[in-house]
């Protein structure tokens, strides 16, 4: 065939490219199979981790197969002198494509429906049980205002007009007696282990996002909306709260401390705060 001016076919290139794809396929699997997630500390988080592990496993395996195939195709095709398989029959093309397309759909939709959706539903649809710890959080540039309802179990009324950044950051209405025993903290949370925590979120200014990596909790807080979340911490420890939505130049340091402790310690801590 007349290929005088076509680019030369280097043997070395074929070797290198083919080897590269082979190594990439293996590398992906080796790198990906390490345990990357922050240690888990919540009940619904186990479901999220199952979802992630399922995806890591399926996509990792499929990528390994695909990269090996790619490597082989380059290897074989780079050494071939005549085309051996010009066009597949139209039927073959359709069957092969649809089969693999459906396989992927099964992997993807199957994951969503079988593993993902139940967790999603549990997380969003379960009403907060009556014994849940109630916390009211107001995010602002660049910290978290944290309120507990105090002994009466009811939050005092707040009004935006009353906000004074120095003396009354959340705008607590002193005319409302129920607010008198509210406990107010900044960037500090303390909750008992193995009891549902119900958090109501507000934002004063920008969009923030309440992200507890170890508890697999993330909820955007859009001003004007008051999303509520419920989850159950399952492991005692001190965890970090991060902001996961760009909210300004201090976004990267909008840190909170989220302590999960035994029920007794939790009660004592709240009593101490209340007496302050």
């Amino acid at each position, binding site marked *: 065939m007349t290929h005088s001016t076509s680019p030369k076919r280097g043997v070395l290139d074929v070797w290198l490219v083919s080897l590269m794809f082979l190594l990439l396929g293996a590398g992906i699997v080796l790198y990906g199979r390490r345990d990357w997630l922050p240690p888990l500390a919540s009940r619904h988080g186990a479901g999220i981790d199952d979802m992630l592990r399922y*995806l890591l496993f399926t996509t990792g395996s499929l990528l390994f197969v695909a990269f090996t195939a790619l490597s082989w195709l380059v290897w074989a095709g780079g050494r071939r002198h005549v085309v051996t*398989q010009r066009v597949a029959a139209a039927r073959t093309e359709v069957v092969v494509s649809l089969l693999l397309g459906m396989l992927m759909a099964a992997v993807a939709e199957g994951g969503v429906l079988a593993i993902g959706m139940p967790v999603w539903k549990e997380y969003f649809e379960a009403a907060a049980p009556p014994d849940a710890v109630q916390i009211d959080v107001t995010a602002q540039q660049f910290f978290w205002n944290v309120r507990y309802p105090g002994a009466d179990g009811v939050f005092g009324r707040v009004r935006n007009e009353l906000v004074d950044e120095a003396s009354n950051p959340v705008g607590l209405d002193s005319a409302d007696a129920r607010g008198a025993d509210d406990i107010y903290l900044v960037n500090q949370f303390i909750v008992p282990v193995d009891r549902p925590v119900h958090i109501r979120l507000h934002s004063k200014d920008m969009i923030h996002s309440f992200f507890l990596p170890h508890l697999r909790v993330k909820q955007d807080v859009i001003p004007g909306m008051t999303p509520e979340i419920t989850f159950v911490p399952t492991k005692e420890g001190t965890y970090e709260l991060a902001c996961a939505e760009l909210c300004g130049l201090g976004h990267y340091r909008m840190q909170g401390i989220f302590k999960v402790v035994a029920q007794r310690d939790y009660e004592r801590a709240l009593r101490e705060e209340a007496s302050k």
Partner: protein
Amino acid sequence: MSHSDSFIRKYIFSTDHKIIGIQYILTGLAMALVGGTLAGLIRLQLGWPGLQWPLLGKLMPVGMPSGVMTPEFYMALVTMHGTIMVFFFMSFVLVSGFGNYVVPLQIGARDMAFPLLNMLSYWIGLLGAIVILLSFFVQGGAAAAGWTAYPPLSAVASAMPGSALGQTLWLLAMALFIASFTMSGLNIVATVLSLRAPGMSMMRMPLTVWSYFISAIMGLLAFPPLTAAAIMLLFDRHFDTSFFLPSGLIVAGKLLPNHGGSPLLWQHLFWFLGHPEVYVLILPALGIALDMLPVFSRKPVFGYRLSVYCLMIVAVLSMIVWGHHMFVSGMSPFSGEYFSISTMLITVPMTIIGVNMLGSLWGARITLATPMLFALGIIALFGVGGFGGLFLGNATADMQLHDTYFVVGHFHLMIGGVTLLGTFAGIYYWFPKMFGRQMSEALGKAHFWLTFLPFFTVFFMQHFVGLQGAPRRYYAFTTYEYLNRTHGQNVVISLVAFLLMAGQLVFALNFIWSLVAGRASERNPWHATTLEWETSSPPPHGNFVEIPTVHRWAYEYSVAGEALDYTPQTVPARQVAVTA
């Protein structure tokens, strides 16, 4: 063309689609240099947070006083990097640049349907690029609210320094860009519909043309909502409206007078554009890859018809999945379920496109020329990036991964990487057509190795930084104890990113050197079948001395019994049998 054409009419204010295409490409490459430099600064900060760089401090006394980057400057860098890369690099070079240059040639047209509109589109686009660059120099600096510009951050001038004049200029630049991009898209649609050469039926068009055609239609459908949103945001900023601002906002201790708006509305409008936009960028790259594989495999593309249908299905589905960017925004959990399921449906056509790429290598005779290397790289990035999409489109998994570096890794592989490799493949492949000279293969291959492997490494690793819980748009990861373990990874990522950037010098060298001193190219250097190779290189004004007549599809390689292993689309059936 008449000789009285002045240089200015011919090369500057030209209505010739080829000149306009090259103008777009060169402008976009210049913008890439800016966007890439910004990425370098970002990586400098993330690799060595808070370190002092006295020399940079002298160059940028405001952003890096005494050589240490300020958080507000970091955010401006990230925002401008994203904006420039998506709108003023990729959209310019890959979509408008090659779209302009290649589409009319490949369908056998003399020019675009509306040449004057085409020229206007370039100049308005250029104006947008200039405005975005100038915004660095205004009071408060460039916009810093992210390329997604979510209000209230982007709506309230006192929210952060970049939200002052910088954000207004950002919106202005976007408006100019959208106007320009719309004209250019309209032109492509009209050209493909009305100016195809005799015999060039739709189902004989190369997949490149199909991908540009479909991507242009998507652009036309998706941009209007963002245009409206941008205007509404300008009104919120300057005329005290409250489209995106709710009641009771308290910024920096001051209660704002706004009433009844919704920041969530912006997210819907933005992503109704934003998601299709990523396909507007990626489809042309896929089309180019699907067309390059046959040229260097010497066999027809696998599953031509299926690919066409899949491109269409992707386009339709992409308009109804925008909510997967908002799973944790607080929208109804039922919407989350819907958007998960619809997003996962896209895997079907996307997988088929991937399978068709692999199928095109089956039983092939492969030549690893530079454009082919980049096309193979596209397959790899598309595979890994696509699988990353399975994580993010799944609402349950996305709860943990949303707004972390997993997302950054994912979208860079797709709209950063597939498109980048597509751009390079296109440049190496069509350079002889544009300038009549061949680029150096040796340098081209070196460039491939210095691009593909570092790019893959950087963004593959970022997925795992995200799995460890590192949020994106963070100035530093030093505040958090649980992120300490990502520090070493960030150093590695930064070092490899610098290698990647240095590798682009090889490309710059090759490009400029080949432009002046490259080996003269023959008319059809790759022995390809499509129409652009049937005319001289570079083609004359009007493209073809005589409009060609098309007799077959674009993939007639290795027809049995023929001496030549390629049969151009213009060869009549009575000379060489038509095989599809």
